[in-house]
């Protein structure tokens, strides 16, 4: 140990001596190796998001206050907030929100549940796959809003047609995500199950379904976002109550404050759905590394 120390001291002395010849030179041997790793790793910075929001809204408010932004193009954020207060006080908020949430919940629950069931069947049975994958591929690209008139004829102008529209819209992406997830379940786990002579039902219930869960959850994220879009579309085309109807009415009256209030509710709905899904996912998929 002492020997090593001595040696390195000696080296240092030499270097100083060399440095004395060329003062201020960085020395020939000693450059630190530049760090160049790190890859493209992302890391979460929790405060940037809120700050960006606050800055955007502050600029917007300042612009509309000073007249830099014409109030024909954008309402004042403070006025939009005022509209919210009014919505809350008069109870109009819930008058529109409750029917919308009900439609969203019922429609997407039906669509997603059916999607998961059909998706699992496609994943498990070759005949079902051969028969249904082309059908799903044919339905998937149809803009579902185009089918609303048809659904109104089939299910009536009331809630039925709206449920059907949201259900169909969430169904197709859910099917595709689910059978993809079933296909991606680790085959070695299934072979393990067979090697222990587990019953077919046990393998499906205890290995295939839990293994497909991560894929099913990412499918849910996409499907529910589509559900919100279709909810608004359905309400714009035929409803007296609901966020979509509220936005349409505000738009036709050129009431920008109310229009923005409506849009913000939708955006908040999307954020809340994503957040709740994230919480469930964290619990259900705790096993993921």
């Amino acid at each position, binding site marked *: 140990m002492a020997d090593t120390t001595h040696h390195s001291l000696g080296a240092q002395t030499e270097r100083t001596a060399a440095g004395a010849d060329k003062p201020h030179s960085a020395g020939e041997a000693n450059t630190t190796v530049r760090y160049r790793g790190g890859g493209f790793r992302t890391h979460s910075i929790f405060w940037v998001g809120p700050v960006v929001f606050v800055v955007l809204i502050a600029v917007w408010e300042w612009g509309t206050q000073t007249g830099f932004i014409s109030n024909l193009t954008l309402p004042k954020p403070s006025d939009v907030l005022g509209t919210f207060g009014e919505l809350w006080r008069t109870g109009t908020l819930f008058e529109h929100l409750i029917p919308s949430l009900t439609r969203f919940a019922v429609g997407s629950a039906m669509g997603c549940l059916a999607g998961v069931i059909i998706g699992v069947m496609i994943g498990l049975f070759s005949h079902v796959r051969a028969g249904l994958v082309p059908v799903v591929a044919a339905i998937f690209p149809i803009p579902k809003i185009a089918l609303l008139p048809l659904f109104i004829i089939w299910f009536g102008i009331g809630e039925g047609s709206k449920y059907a529209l949201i259900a169909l819209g969430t169904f197709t992406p859910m099917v595709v995500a689910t059978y993809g997830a079933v296909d991606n379940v680790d085959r*070695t*786990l299934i*072979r*393990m*199950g*067979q*090697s*222990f*002579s*587990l*019953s077919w039902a*046990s393998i499906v219930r*205890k*290995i295939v379904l*839990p*293994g497909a*869960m991560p894929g099913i959850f990412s499918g849910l994220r996409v499907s529910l976002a589509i559900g919100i879009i279709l909810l608004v579309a359905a309400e714009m085309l035929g409803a007296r109550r609901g966020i979509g109807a509220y936005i349409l009415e505000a738009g036709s009256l050129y009431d920008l404050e109310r229009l923005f209030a409506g849009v913000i509710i939708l955006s908040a709905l999307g954020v809340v759905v994503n957040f709740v899904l994230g919480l469930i996912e964290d619990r259900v*998929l*705790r*096993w*993921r*590394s």
Partner: protein
Amino acid sequence: MDLRVDALSHRYGNLEVLSDISLDIPAGQVVSIIGPSGCGKSTLLRFIGGLERPSEGQIIQRGQPPEGSLNPLTYVFQDFALLPWRTVAGNIALVLEDHGLGSARQDEIITNVLARTKLSEFRDALPKQLSGGMKQRVAIARALAVNPAVMLMDEPLSALDSQTRELLMDDLIDLWARERFTAVYVTHNLAEAVRLGHQIVVLSRRPGKIREIITIETPLDARRRSDPELASIEERLWSVMRDEAQAADLELVDG
């Protein structure tokens, strides 16, 4: 219960992978199968346990599996094959649940096998919390839980680092000394084959044929790492395998 591999051959299309393999697996012994990569040793193991069907030949079971054997032919896989969403105890429960043992009996078996593999304190851990060696111990505990007649081990130590491998090898030898289980142990590692095998079956490169069967008389628990006799057997095996391995290495992988 003894097993016999009887004149087994296998082809994938025109490609012959195994050719006329006949082999005895007597009860209470560990049979190591070694061979160069791609010689079909893992395939052979899948035939022995009925996970795949050979083109020709058959696997014969002589005698009855022991009383209370829930899954007579039980695999231990190279990549552990644990369910990541189940705890250690849950992974073992998985293979018992279908047998309708009742929760008390099931719990008793789990406690027992965890104690035998020194895993008792990890009962509620998830696989992601365990090291590779621990995961393979869980897989071995799971195999023991069904009280197998023959353990079919497919390169069980190959995914582990060399130190863990040594430790787990010692554990396997201890376990064999206590339980005298029957096993077919597929590996490409000569040292493992020699330490753990009563018989060592050397397969040639594709199509896999039996090149040689070596019997080692020294009891498993008396074998030491530095044993000169084992070293000379290992040396001899390597001289048999060397050319095969080299030739196998130079082969193009078939498209």
